[in-house]
């Protein structure tokens, strides 16, 4: 199972763009990259998923280079409510559903 490495914490200010990079050097051919967001006292919530190149939805963008050994979650114009822990996961469910969470990145957005 691919292991991911993310920064433990990041600080930002309201209105800025935040980029969180995740390293996954051992990603397998069939692995997808998925990001979750978790607020205190809540379960993780799906943000975005991709396989290669760029994916964008109403919340975020996900950039994946050609070698797929890393990925970057981009949050445009963050607000205070984006303060949360962000997890990067790689994997596929034919591994028995065992999706592995790392320690995540704690993002703090300040006014």
């Amino acid at each position, binding site marked *: 199972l691919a292991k991911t490495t993310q920064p433990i914490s990041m600080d930002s200010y309201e209105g800025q763009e935040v980029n969180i990079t995740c390293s996954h050097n051992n990603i397998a051919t*069939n692995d*997808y990259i*998925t990001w*979750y967001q978790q607020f205190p*006292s*809540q*379960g*993780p*919530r*799906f943000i975005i*998923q991709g396989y290669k190149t760029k994916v964008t939805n109403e919340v975020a963008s996900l950039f994946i280079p050609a070698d797929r050994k890393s990925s970057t979650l981009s949050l445009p114009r963050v607000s205070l409510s984006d303060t949360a*822990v962000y*997890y990067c996961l790689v994997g*596929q*469910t*034919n591994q*028995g*559903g*065992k*999706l*592995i*969470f*790392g*320690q*995540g990145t704690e993002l703090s957005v300040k006014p």
Partner: protein
Amino acid sequence: GAGVSQSPRYKVAKRGQDVALRCDPISGHVSLFWYQQALGQGPEFLTYFQNEAQLDKSGLPSDRFFAERPEGSVSTLKIQRTQQEDSAVYLCASRPGGGVVDNSPLHFGNGTRLTVT
């Protein structure tokens, strides 16, 4: 419909007591997962069900932990003879599919916070 529902929201148990944690997945979801999350850590996989079949229980930390999903919907995680190290948030997640390859995202409940005193 409603999301994944877990109960109780909080549970305090004295060391040595047995506890049962309930998960109501989203209706019709085939796959169900249990995770354990210690304070300040990411969720750690415990076990996985596809309908009523428990396909992976490799993450259960000891034989004191037992999970079931007898009718392929509601699931119960039981911990016998609780210990202080069992204190954590227990998260349940479900997903619509259950095929060999399914990358659809997990839908998590808000967890049960277990405190063992």
